[in-house]
């Protein structure tokens, strides 16, 4: 049983933390958000130079690791610093999915470009009001005489605006799921581009009779592959939320200790003190769950319900912390001018993506009931 980072991980973490501290403070972040590109090429190069674009991949594909704890480490810092660069969509989601594809030259080629920083990818997966359950994917992929025909709509494709390649999930006529690579400039690909509340660029993408070459299909029978992507997303988003929670707690303790009303710091009011205590409780719960889940994954013992549980705790506890942080900050917390509201918005976006807390909690409850008698696994030491 070990829930700590390795020495190498700590070094990477410290380096990344320093980088973001220097080049990604709140004002710099806001400048990037409001820039026309909505992201910073310079920061991306710094990420590349530090090895961050290689970090979450196994050595077999030229990466530096790619363990669950690597994702946790990276994403916690992204969340803490409100990083809007397309690291999640391009590296963690698209990149890691490509890295798991076996023997598809196109996939490996794109992966190399993503890791080099010479291209960006985006995952086109969610549909409707949110596709937590992969069995509900409705986008259709139909094999034709000379290739494939793609029809459907994908929502909230983060980084979709800028992507050089789209990783698309779809359903084949026989009901099996498929993963494919789509050039976003193809005829029939319609993009509605927008910024998100948490300062990212995204797109809703409509595929209307998009004709694809046969090798666009990088994996059929992709249920497990797509579930793996969803699991990566749940882990990374949860870690981001936990990072955001750390920042919110720190900011609130700091603010409550210095902001004076009635002649004393507001932290001396028991209502505020207890609110801070509850925030700390929530943070400790969420972060413990994060590390615990990462350890389960690395021991090969994580089940879908473990990811769901983590995502639910991160979303639920994260929102509680963020709303408390805004309340403690008072009027200033309701403005665009301090970071707490932006962390709140990031957590709300995380909550909306890949299934909200309620969805995941019900899944946890249902699976815990069916597993109760048969589940010595829960007694974690009984390995």
């Amino acid at each position, binding site marked *: 049983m070990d829930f700590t980072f390795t020495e190498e991980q700590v070094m990477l973490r410290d380096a990344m933390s320093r980088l973001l501290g220097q080049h990604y403070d709140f004002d710099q972040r806001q400048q990037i958000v409001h820039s026309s590109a909505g992201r910073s090429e310079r920061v991306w190069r710094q990420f590349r130079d530090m090895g961050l674009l290689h970090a979450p991949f196994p050595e077999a594909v030229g990466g530096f690791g790619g363990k669950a704890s690597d994702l946790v480490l990276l994403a916690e810092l992204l969340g803490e610093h409100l990083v809007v660069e397309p690291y999640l969509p391009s590296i963690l989601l698209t990149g890691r999915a490509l890295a798991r594809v076996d023997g598809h030259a196109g996939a490996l080629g794109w992966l190399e470009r993503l890791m080099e920083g010479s291209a960006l990818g985006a995952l086109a997966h969610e549909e409707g009001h949110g596709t937590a359950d992969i069995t509900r994917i409705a986008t259709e992929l139909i094999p034709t005489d000379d290739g494939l025909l793609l029809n459907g709509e994908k929502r909230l494709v983060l980084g979709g605006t800028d992507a050089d390649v789209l990783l698309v999930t779809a359903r084949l006529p026989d009901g099996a799921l498929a993963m494919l690579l789509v050039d976003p400039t193809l005829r029939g690909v319609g993009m509605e581009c927008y910024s998100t509340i948490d300062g990212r660029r995204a797109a809703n993408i409509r595929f209307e009779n998009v004709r694809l070459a046969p090798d666009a299909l990088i994996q059929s029978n992709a249920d497990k592959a797509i579930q793996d992507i969803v699991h990566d997303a749940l882990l990374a988003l949860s870690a981001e939320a936990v990072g955001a929670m750390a920042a919110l707690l720190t900011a609130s303790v700091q603010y409550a200790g210095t902001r004076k009303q009635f002649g004393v710091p507001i932290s001396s009011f028991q209502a505020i003190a207890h609110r801070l205590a509850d925030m700390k409780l929530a943070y400790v719960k969420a972060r413990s769950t994060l590390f615990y889940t990462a350890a389960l994954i690395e021991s090969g013992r994580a089940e879908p319900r473990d990811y769901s549980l983590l995502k639910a705790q991160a979303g639920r506890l994260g929102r509680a912390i963020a709303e408390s942080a805004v309340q403690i900050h008072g009027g200033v917390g*309701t403005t665009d001018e301090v970071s707490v509201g932006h962390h709140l918005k990031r957590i709300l976006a995380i909550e909306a993506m890949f299934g909200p807390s309620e969805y995941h909690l019900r899944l946890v409850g249902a699976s815990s009931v069916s597993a109760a008698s048969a589940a010595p696994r829960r007694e974690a030491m009984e390995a």
Partner: protein
Amino acid sequence: MHIDFSDELQAFRREVGEFLDAAPTAAIREAGKKTTSVFAPFKEVMEWHRILHAKGWSAPAWPVEHGGTGWSVEQRYIFAEEHWKRDLPPLLPNGLQMVGPLIMELGTEEQKRRYLPGILSGEDYWTQGYSEPNAGSDLASLACSAVSDGDDYVINGQKIWTTLAHEANRMFMLVRTSREARKQAGITFLLLDRMDYPGMVVRPIVGLDGLVEQCEVFFDNVRVPKSGRVGAENDGWSVAKQLLKHERGGTALSPMLRRKMTLIQQAVRSAPSPNGGVLADDPVFQRDLGEIEAELVSYEAYERMILTNHPIGSDPGMPSLNKIMSTELTQQLGALQVRVAGLWAVPSQVNALTVASGIDPIGDMFDLTAMPFYLNARATSIYAGTNEIQRDLLARTLHAA
């Protein structure tokens, strides 16, 4: 006990409905649908104010002598219901509900003559200058000073959370005129008949929803006439307390909350559940919705107690009870709307939200307004006395009893 109403009231409801169906312009209707705050889009709501004024209905709660409607509380409630049912923009509260009643109560005859007509007609918009960066919950520690100089005061300092100050042509405010007594003494209440006095600078503040609703106002040797003073010099605290009474009660809030709920209940019939099917049929969602519906009905019931002068409503804790209940419900409804909108709440759509922008929203009007409403509602537990302060006040009434 009963909830029956007279035929007259039913006829009144029809009359109100017919007018509200016919009178608003398209822009006003659009502004109503895009209202995600207590404060509706400025230009259109003021236009609507003037239309209602022409009909004689701009100030249902005012006494007839000052241009009010003379309606009973039931009539006012019906008016609010019908108004909300049509998603019309609610008239801005600062003049009609806050400074107007205050001027009636404590203003000089000259002030009444000069200011009430403009409030009634919608010609004027008054921003409120109370809070300062270091005087929020602790309002009594305000520092923005007014020094007496002949017939004028010279103001120096800063106000914040002056709602829509960038649109306002008038301002009511608290200033410090003495530092000698205890903090509450030494405060004076002023009416400013202009927002463009030399030395006044308004800085809009962008909110979490990306919209400008709040402002800062800076005063650098701003000279204003003493004739704008309400009450005696250094007695502004008691004047402001009188106004808080108006701010914290008076109007029916539940019709707005009910309307929000109705929109949610309509949306869930087609909004997909993450468990498949639509949310309306999702048992978990039904239960969660049921809980908020129950809280809403409880609040509606409580508001009816207040309305009918039931003893429950005359409890000294009423203003705080009312403020806490209504704001917590607002926040719950905001969170629920965001939950229903799901991914569709994530795009930032400031432009589409702008009235007459001609930009189609991503999703529908429900999706468009979900996140701004939720985010704006975060402020409801902060402004007009934080809910922490309200709980302090409420607890005090318990021990006095």
